[in-house]
């Protein structure tokens, strides 16, 4: 039994934003994999809920006329993994989605929900950050777009105003074109776990595949929100493909991150894993791009 006082089932995006305006204190529930846990813990006792679970219009992955991938925020992790569009243009997103939790969680958890909760450990969030996703946010007064980098405000906090609903995750064409990504989830067990460190790397190589033209790397749990390692990116861009680049990234990423010591892991241990996942992730991404060591 869950302790809530009302459930409003949205029938369309328009209806959802109207419900949100009419019930400003209500909690939005998508797949429910975060909200239901909080409710079970008694944290949202007596809350009103607005469900967007039935909005299939938010579940599609399509391509915009300008070539951007348009990912519906209600796309579940398992649908992301099995989406032909993502498999073709951005398989790393589906691969990272496939590392989350277990089969049940992956069937209900959504790509939008996992960033709207603002948690740093979300497995797909670092990949969205690593691909410079653009978010489309709808309210009764219209639609606004913002970069995912501006979306995260702090642990559990994102730039969503009351009455605003995330309605699309856009991956621009220049972000995914000729780009090859790789995600490493580091956790204490091989399933049903939360990341100790998540590392998402992607590269664009020169046409001869001998030079790193563009490298992007983002982490989950290396800081309070999913984050890019910009110093490392700047250092690696333009470097020749080779072991020197791999050695360099392991050092460079440590200049960007600020992991903390908690009972879950010490900062020193996290740094070890941050370096090692950077090395392995970059190598794997380069190999996917056709680079040879």
């Amino acid at each position: 039994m869950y302790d809530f006082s009302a459930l409003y089932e949205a029938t369309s995006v328009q209806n959802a934003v109207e419900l949100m305006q009419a019930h400003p204190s209500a909690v939005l529930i998508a797949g429910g994999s975060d909200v239901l846990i909080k409710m079970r813990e008694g944290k949202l006792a007596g809350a009103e809920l607005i469900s967007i679970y039935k909005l299939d219009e938010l579940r599609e992955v399509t391509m915009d006329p300008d070539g951007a991938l348009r990912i519906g925020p209600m796309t579940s992790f398992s649908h992301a993994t099995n989406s032909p569009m993502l498999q073709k243009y951005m398989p790393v997103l589906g691969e990272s989605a496939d590392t989350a939790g277990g089969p049940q969680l992956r069937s209900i958890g959504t790509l939008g929900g996992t960033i709207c909760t603002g948690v740093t450990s979300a497995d797909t969030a670092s990949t969205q950050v690593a691909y410079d996703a653009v978010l489309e946010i709808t309210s009764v007064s219209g639609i606004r777009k913002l970069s995912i980098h501006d979306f995260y405000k702090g642990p559990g906090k994102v730039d969503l105003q009351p009455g605003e609903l995330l309605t699309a995750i856009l991956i621009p064409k220049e972000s995914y074109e000729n780009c090859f990504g790789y995600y490493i989830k580091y956790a204490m067990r091989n399933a049903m776990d939360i990341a100790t460190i998540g590392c998402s790397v992607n590269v664009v190589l020169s046409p001869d595949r001998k030079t790193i033209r563009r490298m992007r790397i983002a982490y989950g749990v290396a800081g309070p929100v999913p984050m890019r390692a910009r110093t490392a990116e700047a250092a690696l861009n333009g470097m020749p493909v080779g072991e020197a680049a791999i050695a360099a990234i392991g050092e460079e990423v440590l200049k960007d991150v600020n992991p903390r010591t908690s009972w879950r892991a010490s900062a020193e241990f996290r740094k070890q894993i941050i370096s090692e996942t950077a090395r392995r992730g970059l190598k794997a991404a380069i190999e996917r791009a056709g680079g040879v060591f």
Partner: protein
Amino acid sequence: MVVGKSVKRVDAFDKVTGRARYTDDLVDKSALIVKICHSTIAHGMVKSIDKSEAEKIAGVVKILTCFDVPDRPFPTAGHPWSTDPHHQDVADRLLLNRHVRYYGDDIAVVIAEDEVTAEQGVRALKVEYEEFSFVLDPQEAMKDGAPLLHEKFKNNILAHTGYEVGNYEEAILEPGLVKIEGWYDTPTVQHCHIENHICYAEEQSGKIVIVSSTQIPHIVRRICGQALGLPWGSVRLIKPYIGGGFGNKQDALYEPLCGYCCQQVGGRLVKLDVSREETFVSNRVRHAIRYHIITFARPDGRFVARRMEAFSNQGAYASHGHGIVAKGASAFKQIYVDDKATKVDAYTIFTNTPASGAMRAYGIPQVSFAIESNVEDAAEILGIDSLKLRQMNMMPVGYKDDFTKNINYFDSLNQCIAKGKAYIDYERKHAEYAKQTGPIRRGVGMAIFWYNTAVWPISLEASSCRMVMNQDGSVQFEIAETEIGQGADTAFAQMVADTVGVPFEKVHVMSTQDTDITPFGTGAYASRQTYVAGFAIHQIGTQLKNKVLNYASYLTGKPADVLDLVDGIVIDKSTKEPLMPIDELATTALYSLDQAEQFSAEGTTQIKSNAYSFGCGFVEVEVDIPMCKVTLLKMINVHDCGRLINPQLAEAQVHGGMSMAIGYGMGEQLLFDPKTGKPLNNNLLDYKLCTMMDHPDLKAEFVENFEPTSPFGTKALGEPPTCPGAPAIRNAIFNATGVSINQTPMTPHVLFARFKEDGLL
């Protein structure tokens, strides 16, 4: 004959189709719901509980607090009761506590019309405490001036026992001995059975009827009687199918509190269903034990003298208490036998942590980790192959223990080792892997173990059963040794079928125990079920068969001693001539106008023996040093548990135990905030129980030496599979990296720290 065959479980179809009924399936939906308010400090006194806001909530029926309950302390351990007051369990529990001794102690309950209301009620209680300082570490708790948990136990020491075989101080003076010394730490872990503890209670016919997910219905009846101040016969305890227990449910958990709540609402039906978070903290856990072992060996490897000190973390209440560390102390002098002397001191110490109780293998996974780590290090220091070192010092054939009178009849350990090492290709790999360099390395490791079957002579061992024959010659079988998922009912049915002489399908095991109906017995624990039930089944089954044969004699005119009942047919033993099918005989007997008779037999068998159960585990690992990760590649357990009653079920038992050992070795540990004593990871996300994806293929093999003390040749298998895994993993990591890790679980955090220390990172 069906013993020895892998027949299907008697409960298989009901369990896979969902027809099997568990406690929560049985409770009437009209039940009031009980929710417990747990303390949010680790140590102190409850000064007051303000109920006023909670009482205003519609649907809250009754609130009971630590100020309401009777001052009638009771013990909770699921041991057979001792009529000798000196051997009785420590009675240190009240239904609810003013003196709270751990974070999560029970201080009040809210009884409400439904679960949401009960939870709202608990949240609305306002508790005021007087806080005391607290202590989480057992060695800290022993120091003078440490916070005291129970007035009767000075320095928080629940018990201290020890023994000395030979003269240790003299023995170690022998010239030329090599000293191997280490401290070994084992963690607090929880059983994590699938079904959390749940019970419900109502008054019927002047009795309190409690239905509970327990392993030990007759023991819990006694404890509820003691806790509620009722004659024991006024409590009726019913145990339906349960979703596992692993020893956590070998304790009275919330049955007494549930019975009390029922009494306080006029005997109405109340249900107490425990959440996973509560199960981790407010049920029982495995004792975390710290060991200090010193071995003195001759350069040729022979152990001359060994010393062990053990500090067992009891947590806040006595529960099973000192028995756990004491069992490990027995193992220490038996699994390896020193040439001159062995000396042990074992302490069980209260701390402000959850109460430790029984858990699968009762202290032996802990002590096996310490002993087998120390032996592996000894081999390294002495420059002797660790297998040979073990074989040189382990319990020899013919060994007899003075206390239990157990005799080691067979060369089980060597036979098990031979099978295990062949499967892993141990010797070749062990030598090869020791030479590796580079970031990713492989290793093999192994460990042996010792186990006792059942609890004689420390405690009562008896088993009672009843067999009643139906019109069609089928047999109802009732026994108090419980099915808890391990397959006991199936093994019983096999033994009954062979003893009575009826087909397996004609045996109906009554799986539900009801203390008003089921013959008395103490339940499922100590890997005793098949062993002790075997004695009772043999005795009572033979009686039933003799009654049938006497009746056959009356019908056929042949003397009973020339007749036999085999697979449901009465035969003439000399000619093998079939005389009459059992169904015809049973129908005739029940409806006879001349000599009507129901065939039934019932009685108690006292078991005054115990049996050694041995085995070993081997593993192969891959260690990714920069990632601080261990992957299990191969794992095998080999057991001598006597003759196998049902090989497939035996294999399943071993797989489950190996899985538990993987968690014990690699992931599981309940953590507490050192600043508050609050549990940090009491949920299945943060407590790293291993998943299927963390398991290698598990291999189980057996050596079948017919156990001479058992009518069916069987002995312990339920618990032993959990024993060798963790030390075998530890020794495999040592083979791969040269790094000795003297604590379990060997998580990436621990590996990181040790790899750094030893210069691998």
